[in-house]
Every structure is written in C-alpha cells, then in structure tokens.
C-alpha cells in the first residue's frame, strides 16, 4: 500500500510540473512585462529586479486602453444580451412547433454550423459594406450576433426537447397567454443552458479578432481591444516594453472570468462539442 501511495504522489508531482511547464509561456510574459528591454534580452528567465508599473501605466494611456476596453465591453455586453434574448425565444418556439415553416427556419439557423466561416467571410464583408456598415459598431455587433446565434439556438433547442410539456400546458389552462407562459414558466427553466451560452459567447466576443478585423478593419474608433493590440504590435515587434504589459492587461479579464466561471466553461465546452 505504502509503495503504491508513494508511486501516485511521484506521478502527481510530475504532472504538476508538467502543467507548470504548460503555463511557462504565460509566466515568462508576465515576469518580462516588468523589465526594461535590455533586461529582457539579458535575463530572460530571471525575475524582475524591481516591480514597477510605469510601463503598464504608460501603455494604458498611450494606447487609449479606457476606450478600447469600453468598446470591447460594449460589444461583449450587447452581443451576449442580444443572444440571450433572441436565441431562447427562437429555440423554444422551433422546438414546440411542428410545421414546415418551423422546420425550414431551423434549417436556416443551423446551416452555418455545417459550413465553415471562411467560406462566406469574403462575401460577408461585401454585404456589410453594401449596407454601409463597414467600420461601424452597429455592423460589428449585428454580425457577431448573427455568427453566435446558430450554436446558441442549437444548444438551447437540444435542452428544451428534454423539458416536459406539462408545465406549459398547465400554465395555459390556468389562462396564461403564450408570451406570458414563455417568460414566466419556460425561461426560468432554461437557466442552466443559458449560463453556458453566456459564458461561451462572452469569451468568444471578448477574444475575437478575426471578425473585428474583417468588419471594422482599421477604423480606430470601433476597434476592439484584441484587434487594436494586434494592429499596434504585430508589425513593429521591437516595442516589447509596451506590448507585454498590453498583452497581460488584455488577458486579465478572461482569466478572472475563467476562474469565476470555470465550472460552466468546462461544462459548456463538452456540451458544445457533442455537435462536433
């Protein structure tokens, strides 16, 4: 027994160190973000001699972080809000209505899940520019909601199929209208799956760079945090003194979000991946 116990602990130690190693790139970024450039080059692996936040503050003001974070929060908030309102409504009605129209609408919503985004992104940018929405916040939010909708509807649809009908029926017998039944009876039942959807979509919007590049492009007033950092630092790679604090600051919200919502994120990933 003792030997067996010891074996396991040695193994755990190895796994623990392996997982630290896995985070090494992030740790290196973090410790180097406090160093002046010469120190990065000469003492890449060592801890910073002094912890000072001068470069952080400089990056914060120089690259207008308040505006970028404001934009990104706005995008994340509005898009997720839009999804949480519209997706369950559609999913509920589609799951409960058996008609040709209902089947057709479901197909229209689900189709994009089978077709890769890259195959219609070219024409999507065209369409957005035809509507004169290129470079605008409205255009970006509308596209984001449209792109996140299929998976959200699909997941909620699957969940609703397992919710018993009786509750709704008895509510209707009691004289509640269809709309009232939905908001008072159905919506509260969907809380678990909605949490998952919120978590997945909030992370996706906060971290998005591709859609923002395609729709907003170089329009500085509507860029999100990721796109702006990318535009700023990917071309001129020598400015690491500002790039590293920028990266760290852009990651902090995702990390906090992850720690708080860990359970839902992991659960959501498994739920979402069943669809493939």
């Amino acid at each position, binding site marked *: 027994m003792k030997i067996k116990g010891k074996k396991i602990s040695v193994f755990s130690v190895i796994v623990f160190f392996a997982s630290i190693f896995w985070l090494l790139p992030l740790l*290196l970024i973090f410790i180097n973000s406090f160093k002046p450039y010469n120190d990065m080059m000469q003492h*890449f692996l060592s801890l910073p001699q002094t912890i000072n936040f001068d470069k952080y503050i400089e990056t914060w003001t120089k690259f207008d972080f308040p505006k970028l974070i404001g934009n990104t929060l706005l995008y994340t908030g509005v898009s997720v809000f839009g999804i949480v309102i519209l997706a369950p409504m559609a999913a509920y009605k589609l799951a409960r209505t058996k008609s040709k129209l209902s089947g057709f609408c479901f197909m229209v919503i689900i189709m994009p899940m089978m077709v890769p985004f890259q195959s*219609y992104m070219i024409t999507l940018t065209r369409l957005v520019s035809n509507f004169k929405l290129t470079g605008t916040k409205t255009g970006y939010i509308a596209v984001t909601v449209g792109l996140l909708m299929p998976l959200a509807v699909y997941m909620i649809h699957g969940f609703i199929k397992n919710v018993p009908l009786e509750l709704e029926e008895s509510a209707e017998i009691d004289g509640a209208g269809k709309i009232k039944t939905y908001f008072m009876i159905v919506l509260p039942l969907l809380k678990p799956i909605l949490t998952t959807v919120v978590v997945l979509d909030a992370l996706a919007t906060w971290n998005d760079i591709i859609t923002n590049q395609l729709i907003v492009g170089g329009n500085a007033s509507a860029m999100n945090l990721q796109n702006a950092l990318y535009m700023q630092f990917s071309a001129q790679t020598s400015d690491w003194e500002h790039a590293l604090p920028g990266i760290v600051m852009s990651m902090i919200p995702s990390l906090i979000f992850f720690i708080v919502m860990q359970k839902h994120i992991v659960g959501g990933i498994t739920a979402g991946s069943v669809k493939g």
Partner: protein
Amino acid sequence: MKNKKVTEFLIFALFVFPAVIFVIFSTDIPFLMNLYYSFFDWNGVGKSMTFVGFDNFIKIFTADTLFWKGVKFTLKFAVFYVVIVNIIALAIALVLSKEKKSASVGRAFYYIPYIISLTAISLIWKFIIGPGFESLYNITGWEIFNWSWLGTGKLAFVVVVVMTVWQNVGFYMVNYIAGIIAVPKELMEAAQIDGANKVQTITRITIPMIMPSISICLLTSLTFAFKLFDVIMVFTKGGPANSTVSVAYNIYKEAFVNSNYGLATAKSLVFVVFVLIITAIQMKVTKSKEVES
C-alpha cells in the same frame, strides 16, 4: 378558426424571425452571394463583372499551384495536429481524471491557453521565439535557439503545430475527462481484483469504454485542422515564402490581397465541399457510436 391561425403565426414570427434575420444577414445571404460570384471574374471593387461560367473552377484544378500547395500544407498539418494533440490530451486526461483538488488545479492550468485570445497567443510566441530565444542563445550557446524559427518553412511549420497544440489541448482534455468519468467504477475494480495492472486497466477497460469521446475528439480535431485559418492569419501570415499558407488562408489572400473575388469565392466552394465531406463522416461516426454506447 382562421383568426387563431393568424395569431399563432404572428406569435411564431415574433419569437423566431428576429433570430432568423440576424443569421440570414451574417451567414446565409453571404453564402448564397458566394455561389453567385464564383461564376464571375471580378476584382471586388469595380463595377465590371464578367460572367465566366466554370472558368474559375477549371482554373483551380488546372492552374492554381498555390492552392494545391495550401492543400498539401493543410493535410500535413492535419496529420501532425490530430495525432499529437489527441495523444497528449488523452495522456493528461488519464492522469487528471481523478476527483482531487490537485487534479482540478492541473486541469485548469492546461485549459487556460484555450481561453486566451489569439492576439495574446501570437504575440506571446513571437516574443518567446524572438527576444526570448535570442537571450537563451546568449546564455546557453545552444544552436537550437539560434535557428531561424519563423524564417524557414520547415521550422515555421513546427512552430504552428506546437502553438496550436499548446493552445487547444485543454479542449480535448476536457472531452476525454468527461468520457473517463462516465466509465463505471465497478468495471475498473473488477479488473483490478482479477489482477490487471494499471496499464492493462487503461488499455483493456478505459480506452475501449471511451471510444465515443475518442471519435468525437479525433473528428473535431480533424475539422479544426482543415479549417486552420485564424492562427495563420494572425501569426505567420502564410510566410515564409508561402510555406504555411493553409487552404482557408489561401482563399482569404486571393480575395483581399490579390483582389480576385470571383476566383476566391469559387475556391471557397471547393473548400466547403471538402469540409462537408469530413463533417458528414464525422456525424455518421458520432451517431453510430452513440447507438453503441
């Protein structure tokens, strides 16, 4: 009676149409436009569009060497990515599928790269490969840190594989763990009572029992590999010398860099067919596994 039908329809419309409109705008219409443009020669900006029939498609299959170079790169990437990411994820999952505090911390560590934005990921790796390796070379003098990692095609390929595996392993790990946890404990205990050692329990009990998770992970990783785009666009931009151009990135470049909209849309249709075949196989396999389990 008729009135009731009208109200029913109105309620249906109120519930469903808003979502449908958003989806149609950002996906379905662009996809149909894509079908239409693929038969034209058009630079994407000007008014002049010439109908060319199937010329774009013929061009892809006969004259477009860069596209086929992209296909080759994508297939090669798919093989390496699928094998490596699944082996590592399964190994980690086997160790970390215990209900212990330390195991859940370990899981979180492997998972964190998956929730970080591509911007951060690509800058992090640029920093490590650039100043980081330079500094390590000065300290250690090892040649490996002096190689031109993003300057030679073969090494850039390695970097892309390492980076995508590093970022995504947590995702597959979580799926494997979900499968492993669902394996009945009695089976393991029975095997151990019968004298099976650790390795035997894994190969004879765990692996066969989690076949559904394995097939899901294999196929999701395969689709991911075929669609490889974001990383290339943000990190290597297809370089050096087009050595890391994936199919999806080749399409993007054809449209936005070379301004051949017609050709690019035709290519994306060919690409859709490729991916749809994979998805169809994926769904079939996943469904049949579900019945079995």
